[in-house]
């Protein structure tokens, strides 16, 4: 039995589509119900529907063998996992954003206050990459409010289209990381269930390659 932890919502559906395209019977995972564990004895697949931020935890502890989760969650949670495939979908960027007037002047503000839903990513970026100490303010949503209302100078958040930013007079100042959905595998499962997991990963990689090729053609 292979246990796969999916991030509830759109990402889960896309992950199931991909597994199906790779030749796996995922009907158990599509069952419309409030069940949190969807199991199919026949196919040997068990899906658990978890909050995205919890997927890396389930996989690290071996409660799930495999997980599908956004790179943003992986960076924030910092778990010890095999990160085996970049699925390409759910693509966006983790950015430092602030008032347009700060463009190119970010480094000139001393003692910055940075608001974010991602305090660990923020700390790693400012302290690790930029070698700068900042005050981090953890928020849980509508982070764009913080610079508008004077709670923080800048924010670190996910940017997809950038529309919310523009409408509020904000802009991307620096890119922290490219984000997309990833397949992660527990380090023990990879060894103990190699005969099931490795073929699944190979099939998924093949599908991702096909998907990327199709996208390249469109583009």
């Amino acid at each position: 039995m292979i246990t796969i932890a999916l991030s509830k919502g759109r990402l889960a559906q896309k992950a199931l589509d991909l597994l199906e395209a790779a030749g796996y019977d995922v009907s158990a995972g599509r069952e419309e119900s409030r069940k949190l564990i969807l199991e199919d004895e026949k196919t040997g697949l068990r899906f658990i529907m978890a909050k995205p931020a919890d997927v890396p935890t389930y996989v690290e502890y071996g409660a799930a063998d495999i997980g599908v989760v956004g790179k943003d969650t992986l960076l924030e949670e910092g778990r010890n996992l095999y990160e085996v495939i970049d699925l390409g979908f759910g693509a966006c960027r983790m950015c430092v954003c602030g008032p347009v007037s700060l463009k190119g002047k970010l480094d000139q503000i001393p003692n910055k206050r940075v608001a974010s839903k991602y305090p660990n990513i923020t700390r790693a970026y400012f302290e690790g990459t930029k070698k700068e100490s900042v005050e981090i303010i953890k928020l849980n949503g509508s982070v764009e409010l913080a610079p508008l209302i004077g709670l923080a100078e800048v924010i670190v958040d996910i940017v997809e289209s950038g529309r919310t930013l523009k409408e509020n007079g904000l802009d991307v100042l620096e890119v922290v990381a490219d984000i997309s959905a990833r397949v992660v595998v527990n380090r023990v499962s990879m060894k103990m269930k190699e005969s099931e997991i490795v073929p699944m990963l190979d099939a998924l990689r093949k599908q991702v390659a096909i998907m990327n090729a199709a996208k390249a053609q469109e583009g």
Partner: protein
Amino acid sequence: MGNYRFHTPDGVIDILPQEASAKRKLEADLRSLFSGHGYSEVETPGIEYYDVYASGDFVAPEGLFKTNDKDGRILALRYDGTIPVARLAATLLKDEKPPLRLSYIENMFRFKESGGGKLREFSQGGVELLGLDDAEADAEVIALGIKSVLMTGITDLQISIGQLEFFRGLVEEWGLSNEDAIELSTAIDQKDIVRVEKTAERLGLSEDAEELLDMISNRFGTYDVLDAFEAKVRNETSRSALKNLREILDALSDYELLQYVSIDLGMLRNMDYYTGMIFKGFTYEVGFPILGGGRYNKVVSTFGRELSAVGFSLGINLCLTALRRQDKLPEYVRVDAIVGYSQEEGMRKAAFATAQALRETGLKVIVDTEHRSEEELDAYADEYGIEQVIFVSDEGEDKEEENT
């Protein structure tokens, strides 16, 4: 201030009789296994100076449980077994001629492991073989690691063996900067094949190199893997790493333990700490390796003595978790027999003697200090699942019966 008197802090647990008994037995077996292989046990203090761990850069300071002594010096609780043993080998044991074979069974304390079930205090048993720098020493330690796991009753065991010098040789051959080497090794270690390919492309590596990277990520096995790599690799460092692995496999084959091991050259963790062969052991039902070790030739020298070293540690709590989940914990018997006695003179003395004689045969025996009658004692033994009931009375022979 809150009142926490009913609680244990995050990451530490009470161990109840059944598991405690299994744990003590496991530790006792481990102790005799280690000493049976000529490893002498040492006991290092639970509290060290912070510098012991911090000066070699082997442990992130955030991971240590810290406190101060009265002079303001920073102290740290024992974080692992290896570094204190390395300190010992370079200080109190500095005049002992190598090789040194040392072992420990201790509790470790890790500040950062909190949250979600990882313990912050846990037991590890391990060995360090100091002063021998060859494949036979590597194999001795791996073999003892495997025997340790098997001795616990875990039978589903997989050992992955890597060799960090193999990758270091490629880094030199390809002329990679330190940063690029770290990026590449991280991608390989995470088995992120696409990122490995992208990094190789960015670094402008040859087709041959890309093929090698693909093999590192995908080829596991024993001699067949070594053959395949030997046919492709030219640089001396990598080739001698392969030779080291081949000799390790040869020795493990003579130990008759080859069936448990598999070569994985993509294991590239803790590259600051380990300097050659590394290995990890896995079983079902626990998400973390239960066994880990390798060669760490630079650690003892941070304490001022040039001494090569190889060792492993076994996660005792993880083994117990695996045994519990695999339904392999030994059945726990609280008491084997109860001895009662009648109220005539001299019977208590006779009961004590009877109980003592039984204990000397290895049974767990209690004496009924609550003065039950023979019938009451039978009923009591029934209720508590005590197999043997002995009632000592004046009416001739002691009565013994099996409680079924």
